[in-house]
């Protein structure tokens, strides 16, 4: 993957420690300085630094999104997968996304609590977990996460897994940031008609039904398989696992490592990337907050506000 560093357009720059340049920080991150890495990622997250990448042309994935509804066990499953992947000699970074409050802008980032792998003395050096808040963006994952993932790959992590916010049926934004999408489902998530509905399921490269130890998991997996096989394209695999007991995790971890991109999602991926870039452009407008206040106070029409936001040069 080819990467380039681009400073943010407004020239805010980063604020390295005394005498520390951006190159110093990247080099420190490359030789394993976790603090330098964490700060580099903060600079990207705060919009002070941008990582642009070219397409991942290889058949192996570098960035995988783990998505699915809240409470199906995405974090627990990811913890199990990390144990397996680290045993396979991989070094994996995780960007765990949780929602920001639309009212206060704050966030409670709790995915880390599930990650036992970071407490494992033998494995913790092969895993990096970073919690990310969605901040102002809509959807289950902010576009800046892709820049963060590219940065992690650049400084030497083998693969990056993005755990999205608990996602609803139509939240397909993760297609904009990842090479592969894995949908995690739980048991008893509605009848067969739910599995027929359009949305996220159509973009998944694989589906994992977690909590196989509970009633209804097998049936839900069957319904999903049936629904996916109705399409004319090659259907993604549907696996049953229990992250709690570890059942099926070994099979899932090796299946995911060699996961191929489904052809069905190509156009949708580009669509999501375009949409999230557009959103980012609007959000990065220096007057965004003041324009928002003006609409709220009735000082500006919605149309004028949108036109001003679209014009980055004003």
């Amino acid at each position: 993957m080819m990467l380039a560093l681009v400073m943010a357009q407004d020239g805010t720059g980063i604020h390295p420690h005394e005498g520390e340049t951006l190159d110093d920080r990247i080099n420190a991150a490359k030789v394993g300085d976790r603090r330098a890495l964490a700060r580099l990622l903060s600079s990207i997250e705060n919009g002070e630094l941008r990582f642009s990448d070219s397409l991942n042309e290889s058949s192996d994935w570098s960035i995988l999104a783990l998505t699915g509804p809240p409470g199906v066990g995405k974090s627990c499953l990811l913890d199990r997968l990390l144990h397996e992947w680290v045993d396979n000699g991989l070094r994996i970074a995780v960007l765990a996304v949780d929602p920001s409050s639309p009212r206060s802008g704050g966030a409670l980032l709790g995915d880390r609590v599930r990650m036992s792998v970071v407490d494992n003395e033998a494995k913790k050096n092969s895993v990096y977990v970073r919690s990310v808040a969605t901040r102002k963006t809509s959807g289950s994952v902010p576009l800046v996460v892709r820049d963060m993932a590219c940065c992690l790959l650049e400084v030497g992590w083998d693969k990056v897994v993005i755990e999205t916010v608990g996602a609803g049926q139509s939240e397909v934004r993760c297609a904009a940031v990842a090479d592969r999408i894995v949908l995690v489902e739980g048991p008893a998530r509605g009848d067969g008609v739910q599995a027929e509905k359009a949305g996220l399921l159509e973009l998944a490269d694989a589906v994992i039904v977690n909590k196989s130890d509970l009633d209804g998991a097998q049936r839900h997996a069957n319904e999903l398989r049936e629904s996916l096989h109705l399409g004319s394209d090659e259907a993604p695999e549907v696996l049953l696992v229990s992250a709690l007991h570890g059942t099926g995790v070994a099979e899932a971890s090796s299946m995911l490592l060699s996961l191929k991109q489904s052809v069905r999602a190509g156009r949708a991926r580009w669509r999501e990337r375009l949409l999230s870039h557009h959103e980012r452009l609007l959000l990065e407008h220096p007057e965004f907050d003041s324009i928002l206040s003006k609409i709220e106070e009735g000082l500006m029409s919605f149309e004028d506000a949108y036109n001003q936001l679209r014009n980055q040069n004003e």
Partner: protein
Amino acid sequence: MDQPLRIVIAKPGLDGHDRGAKVVARALRDAGHEVIYTGLRRTPEQIIETVRDEDAILLGLSSLSGAHGHLFPRICETLREHNMGDVIVFGGGIIPEDDRSPLFEAGVRAIFGPGTTSEEMVEFIATAVQRDDAGVGHGAGWYWNPSA
């Protein structure tokens, strides 16, 4: 525009009560900060690794087990050893009055007991991040005078 502050709320040691920590985490979230909660029974090393990997600027320690006199200074010391002296440490829980000055000596910048309002904590944070001597690396020095 100002970015949210990243704050780790941690439960060090053998202490299974985290209602207080969760209330604090929630209050700081509602004040617009990004709060990373560690979960229960963390070692000082695990807490510091979380602060490091998450690039947090503040670390809040909650203890109701009586081990604060050992754990809080140990965490402050480990932060300094790891070249993380700019992290601001504050604490709360059941910390008797007599136990507080050794903690301030160790570099803890505030101790909040039962009855503290969330407004006061938010005010402490806003004050502390404006100061250039609030990091744990500055050792004993300025600390917040709590009202509760």
